Structure formats: structure tokens, C-alpha cells
């Protein structure tokens, strides 16, 4: 038994089956990421003043990753076009570049961007103690200028034991630029370039801290959304790369010999998925890195 319209289009709909399937799947994906992005909107609107952080992500690296992903969306189209022109060697080349781009994107994410967060420390200061830490927060300065207040002190934690040991009563933090020099007008707006921790040390009493920890998903709702959305997006990138590798391996060559149009269709469908993954990133980048 053969299912009709697997390779050639049905005349009245003008579509072959997998193309209908992938568009439906992508519609469902839009709703999946839509749910997460609506959570972002909900949580950001609900956040207390100063609770939604800015400038904690590395914009140059994010920009590079954006460029890599967009480039890979171009090369996957070239790969498909090469198949349509029946130039298999060029298909292999372009598909290879696409795979490489996907791998670089994931490597940057997993080997650099995420781990950088895991070692960065922050402490939410209780409302009643904000006054005490004014030298690190500079809220009077911000208030005078009409900016949102700061309510956390960030940097590198020196005494890691403090996180678990109830006998240690304070955190020893090598401060970030913004807390080391809070009234510097340079820090009024979020930094888009990475700023390293300073040598200035602050001692923060645990009693004054509402919640403290590394920049993990549980640090605040911003990082919760950031890690969940980029994590799910990363899984999609991984899925796409695996499919591309499958089509790039001899499986693709064998299918090409049997029915080149079938391989072109598969590349087209995988490419549509890849464009969607790209598109999600186009939303992720400004929402988390820039705004």
C-alpha cells in the first residue's frame, strides 16, 4: 500500500503531505513558544520595580550567535536550491555549513553563555535593609534621575560555604562595576558590553537578604524565563542539527540516487523547521538581551 502525494503535490491543494504536516507542526510550535513568551510578558509586567534585571547578558556574543543563525538559514536555502538544480556536491557543502553553524551556536550557548551565569552571584536585599546598602545601590542617585531603583547586589561570591552553612552570617562579594560605583552615570543604563567584577569587596549580612544565589533559573523570574526559553530553543536547534546530519550522511546520498526530488522535499521541510527556530531566536534576542 502506498500513501499518495508523498513526493508530488496533490493537484487541488498544490501541496505534498509533509509540507502540510510541517506547517501544522509549526503552527503548534508557535503556540508552544507563544505560551512561554506570554509568560514572559505576564511576569515582566508583574515584576516589582527593580526586580526585572537589565544588562546581565552578553550582547556581543548574543549578536554573533544571531548572525550565525541567520547565516545558517540562508545556507539551508542554498542547500535546497542546489538539490533542485541537481548539484549534489554543492548541497553537501551548504548543508555542511548549516550544520556547522548550528553546532557553533549550541557550543557558544552551552560552553560560554550559560556557564558564565552559573558562577555569577547575586543577593536580593530586603526592602527594610535597602537603606543600609545605599553605598552599593545608589538608589538616591537613581531616584533623582527618575530611574528604577536597584534591590540586589551582584558580583563574585568569595565564601561559597555561606550558601549552605548556617554558621556563616555574611556573604563576601567581589562587586560588579554597577555596585562598586553605583552613582557613576555610566551605570545608570544597562551595559551592553560585558563588565568584569571589580576588586571592591562588600560584606552583606544574610539577615538583610531576601534570597541569594547564583544566576540559576531559581534566581528570579527573569532567569527562570531566560533559561527555560533558551533551553527549549536550544533543544530545537539540536533537533534541527540532528535531522540535517541525518540528511547529510550517506542516507541522503542514497535517497538522492533513488529520488532526488524526495530528498529536496525533506530538506525543504527540515529547512522550514530551521527557519522557525531562527525566527524564535529573533524574538528571544531582543526580549532578553536588549530590552
Amino acid at each position: 500500500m502506498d500513501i499518495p502525494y508523498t513526493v508530488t503535490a496533490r493537484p487541488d491543494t498544490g501541496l505534498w503531505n509533509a509540507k502540510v504536516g510541517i506547517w501544522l507542526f509549526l503552527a503548534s510550535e508557535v503556540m508552544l513558544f507563544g505560551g512561554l513568551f506570554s509568560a514572559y510578558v505576564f511576569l515582566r509586567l508583574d515584576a516589582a520595580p527593580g526586580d526585572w534585571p537589565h544588562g546581565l547578558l552578553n550582547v556581543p556574543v548574543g549578536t554573533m550567535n544571531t548572525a550565525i543563525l541567520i547565516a545558517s538559514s540562508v545556507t539551508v536555502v542554498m542547500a535546497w536550491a542546489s538539490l533542485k538544480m541537481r548539484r549534489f556536491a554543492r548541497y553537501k557543502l551548504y548543508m555542511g555549513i548549516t550544520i556547522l553553524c548550528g553546532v557553533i551556536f549550541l557550543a557558544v550557548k552551552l560552553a560560554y553563555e550559560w556557564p558564565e551565569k552559573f558562577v555569577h552571584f547575586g543577593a536580593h536585599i530586603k526592602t527594610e535593609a535597602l537603606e543600609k546598602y545605599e553605598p552599593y545601590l545608589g538608589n538616591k542617585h537613581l531616584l533623582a534621575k527618575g530611574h528604577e531603583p536597584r534591590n540586589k547586589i551582584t558580583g563574585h561570591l568569595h565564601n561559597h560555604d555561606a550558601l549552605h552553612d548556617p554558621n556563616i552570617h555574611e556573604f563576601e562579594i567581589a562587586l560588579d562595576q554597577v555596585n562598586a560605583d553605583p552613582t557613576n552615570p555610566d551605570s545608570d543604563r544597562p551595559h551592553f558590553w560585558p563588565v568584569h567584577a571589580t576588586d571592591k569587596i562588600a560584606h552583606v549580612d544574610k539577615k538583610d537578604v531576601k534570597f541569594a544565589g547564583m544566576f540559576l533559573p531559581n534566581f528570579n523570574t527573569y532567569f527562570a524565563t531566560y533559561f527555560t526559553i533558551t533551553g527549549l530553543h536550544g533543544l530545537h536547534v539540536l533537533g534541527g542539527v540532528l535531522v540535517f546530519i541525518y540528511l547529510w550522511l550517506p542516507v541522503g546520498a542514497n535517497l538522492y540516487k533513488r529520488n532526488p526530488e524526495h530528498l529536496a522535499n525533506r530538506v525543504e521541510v527540515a529547512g522550514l523547521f530551521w527557519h522557525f527556530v531562527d525566527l524564535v531566536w529573533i524574538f528571544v534576542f531582543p526580549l532578553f538581551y536588549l530590552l
Partner: protein
Amino acid sequence: MDASSGLAPHPHAEHDPHHHGDGHDHHELPFWRKWIISTDHKVIGIQYGITGLLFLFFGFSLMMLMRWQLAYPGEALPVIGHWLGSFFGPGSMPDGKMTPEFYNSLGAMHGTIMIFLGIVPIAFAAFGNFVVPLQIGAPDMTFPKINMASYQAFFVGGVVMLISFFVPGGAAKGGWTSYTPLAVISDTGPAYHPFWNGQSLWLVGFILLITSSLLGAVNFIATIIQLRAKGMTWMRLPFFVWSQFVTAFLLLLAFPPLESAVVMQLMDRLAGTSFFMPSGLVVNGAPVQISGGGSPLLWQHLFWFLGHPEVYVLILPGMGIVAEIIANNTRKPLWGYKSLVFAALVLGFLSFIVWAHHMWLTGMGNVVSAFFQTTTMIISIPSVIILSAFFISLWGGSIRFNVPMLFATAFLPMFGIGGLTGIPLAFNSADLYLHDTYYVIAHFHYIVAPGTIFAVFAGIYFWFPKATGRMMSEFWGKVHFWPSLICMNVIFLPMFLQGMLGMHRRWYDGGQGWTLAGEKVWGMSGFEWNGPISIAAWIMGLAQIPFIINFFWSMKYGKKVNDNPWEATTLEWTAPSPPPHGNFAKTPTVYRGPYEYSLPGRETDFTMQDEPMRDSDRKAYEAAAAVHH
């Protein structure tokens, strides 16, 4: 009967090397290839159907247990109580007495299992898989392997849900809605494993079930768009196919936001995030060590964004089944076919913008409430159109009251009661009083239990001969039908009453301690009404025995029938019973609409969709058109 039905020649399956074209020989493939990992849409439909029926009975059994606690709170369950206590482990029913935690587990899992493992798999996946490709004249679904993966994901999801009963602490206790922050903090702490606990497994099970429904929905829509037989235009599709088409879109688009919510709740439980955890949360007198800043309302929005379309996922396939059976047994074309189709489409669209009417009491604000109140009012219009069309279809018909038709006819008033009692809940002023009472339980059970489940039974009796080549017993069907109908009403009618007395739906003691529940109605207090309700529930459990026996007995010993025993018109009845892999001997061509019953100038009172036009048909159609204009 024409040549394309009845004594059809054996199908030729020259493309499939495993099949040697003998429609009678079912032993070509080893058992596990044919029944366990099959890609045949009919086998997958049957797999879904049988698994779904098992879950349906299991979910119902959970409720039968709860009914004991509600009618006789704190008393030991006789006979099986001790055994159940040791089966479900310590903390469930020590000495046969149900603990509050176990009661909560039963409540949460009853809802979850009935909806997501019982009705959706049967009404959508089983009937859709089995019937839709046959009705549109397709050889199979567009993506048979994805279809198989869909069933497997569903099966594993179901197993995960079952396992959750036996982990320390038992199954999820946060209600089928898993409202946060309760659901995030429940099943946590020293007595629970961080992952192998009821609520976390509930979430993992859900991810699998959503994956399954996604794969199924894509397949259904693509199949209906791509694999319709020649001449099967959109307005010639049987209404059942339309109902499945709309249902598939609802599942495709409404489930993913819940999937995102489920992932977020898992993050809250496993990674300590605060998606749904507000600032300043205090549990057992101690502040919870979390960052806070999350929104419990966000969960409710995402949940009900699925939850409301889900209601139509439950009811639309039922309406589709009822439509087929009514047309077949009134021997008339379905009244208002086009109105039905457009009503179903409008219903599907509107079901996406009514969800917050489940949340009147959350303080969303007047503007939001006014919007959702309005859309909720509007959505009743297409529902009424559909129900009215069914009622008018009965008008003047010489109705055959066989078992499928009995169930289909009973569906109409039962669904009507369910629908009409929903209207007070749609107004937030009336809902203030009725919210979370037994009234709500009665309302939605009238839609789903004597509504959808009756439609499901109707469908099983109706398509059983197509799936097996044998009839189910009429007599035992009636023995199944009448007690079920009576018990359904004895169970759910008094619940309206209890709800109006203010009895809360989640009470462990059945309202024993609630003053207003002592008010007498017809000589019995609201609490005492639990007695007859529970007894009716147990009798209804017994009334399913004839069905179970009939179902399995008829598979082997039922009366053998030809390919079209109901003298129906749609394409599935042109295929052999049971249809072989690949379905049709020759791809059918369609010449007419789906319900050409009693066409003037024909020898029989049914004209099948694949029968070519005759001059007498054209005259009949012209005469009918002249009457309408």
C-alpha cells in the same frame, strides 16, 4: 446494493510485500507486528479504543471509591477496603478507611484519567483513526509511522500516570487542574522523592500525552486535507469528518500553551524557579525559600487556554458520531448540513476566546470579565444550532430505534441539560454563588458523561460490525442502555440540588459538616442525597458488565454481517468488514453528499456516496432545489 459494496472482490495489495491480498487471512503478520507496532490506522484506532476503554473504566472505578467516602464518610469500605488499602499502599485506606490525601489523589486522577486517557483517546483518537480515513476514501493516514508514535507516546504517558499511584505519597493531589501554588508545593518535602512523586509524574505524563495529541492532530488534519478520494469535496465530507477536523485544530493549537505551562511547573518543582510562586508565600507558618515574583494566575490562564477548547475536544467528536447515527436511523438527510459545518467551525474558533470564564473568582477585573462573559454567551449560539439541527433531523423520520440510535437519541436531551445549566455559570454574578459547587460537577458531567460517553457507546455499537464483521447483541445492548440512562440521571440531577445548597465539590466528608447541607429537599438533606447518588453510581458500574461481555463475546460469536449492515451511505461501508490493510479494493470516487437517504427514484432508501449519478437523481435534486428557493 451496488457492486462496490457487499460482495466486493478481495483487495489487491501488490505494493505491500507482507500482505498477500487475502482479506480473510489475518495471520500473515506475527501478533506483535499486527497488533503492537502496527502502522495501520484501523489497528491504531482499535489500540486507542481498547486502551481508552480500560482507562475509562479505571477512572470510573476511582470515582466509585470516592462515592463510598462521600456517602459514608469515615466508615470502612466493606469487603474490598482492606485489600485496596494494601494494594495502594500505606496512607491510602488503612483499615479500609480512606485518608484525605488518598481522597484527593482519587479526585485529581479521576478527572485526569477520564478526560485525557479515556474520552479524548476514544472519541478523538480511536474513532478518528478508525473511521476518518475510511470515510474520506483514503488508504491510511498521511503519516502512518507518526500515527504509531502517537499511540506509543499516549501509552507511555498513561503508564506514567498509573505508576504515580504507587510512588511514596501516592498520585497527584492538586485536582485535575493542578492549580498553583498548591500543586507546586504538594508532594514535596522529606517524605517524597524529588522526582518520583505524584505531582511531578503527573506533569511528565502530561508532556507525553500532549506529544501524542500533537502527532495525532497533525496527522488528522493533513489526512483530511490531502487524502480525500476523488470527488470528495469539502461539502461532501460526512459531518463526523468535519467534527474531527475541528477537534484536531483545537488539540493542535490549544495543547501547546499547556505544555509550556507544564514545563514551567516542572521547573518550579525541580529547579526551584518561581514562575507560578508569588512573593511572600508562607507554607506551614514558614516563608518558602524561593525568589518569588511569579504569578499563580498565569498558570490558570495557560491551563484554561487548553481547558476550554478541551471541552469542545470532548464534545465535538460526540456530535459527529451522533450526526452519522441520526442520519442513518431516521433514513433522511441530516437537516442543515451546511449550518452544522459552519457552526462547528465557529464553535472551534470561539472556543479559543472564552477560557477565562473558568476564572471569575480570581479577581481578573471587570473589563476582562465583561469580555469573556460576552464571548461565552456568543458560543452558545453555534452549540444550539448543532443541537437544533439534530432535533429537527428527527422530525418526520421513520426512526429505527436500534442500540446505536438509542444512545444517540439519549445524547440529545442529556447534552441539552448540560448545555443549558452552563448558562448561569457563564454570568459572573450567578457564578459567585455556584462556583466550585456540585452544581458545576453536575453541569459538565451532563455534557461529558451522558453526553460524550453515550455518543461513544453509540459509535462503538455502530462501527463494531465494520471493525469486526460481526454485530453486537441488540438485547444486551438494551440491557446496557436503559440502566445506564437511568443511573446517569439519578447520579447527576441531585447534584444540581446539592450545588444550590452550597455544597463544595472538593469536600472530603461529603458535606456532613456543612449546615446548609442539612436542609431537607424531598425529605432528604443535601448530605443524605449522597446515598442514592452513590448507589446509582455503583449500579451503573454493574450496568457496564453486559457491555463488556457483549463487546468481547460478539468479536468471536456475534452475528456475521455483510459490509453495510446499517444500510448507510458513507464510504466506510463500501469497504470490506473488517477492511484489510489499505482499506479499499479500488480507490473510491465520490459523486454525491454524505446523507443521500430516501432519494426519490431509487430502488433502495439509501444511495451511497460512490454511486454514479443517474438522470432520476438529477431530477430529484432539481425538484428539491426548487422547493428550497
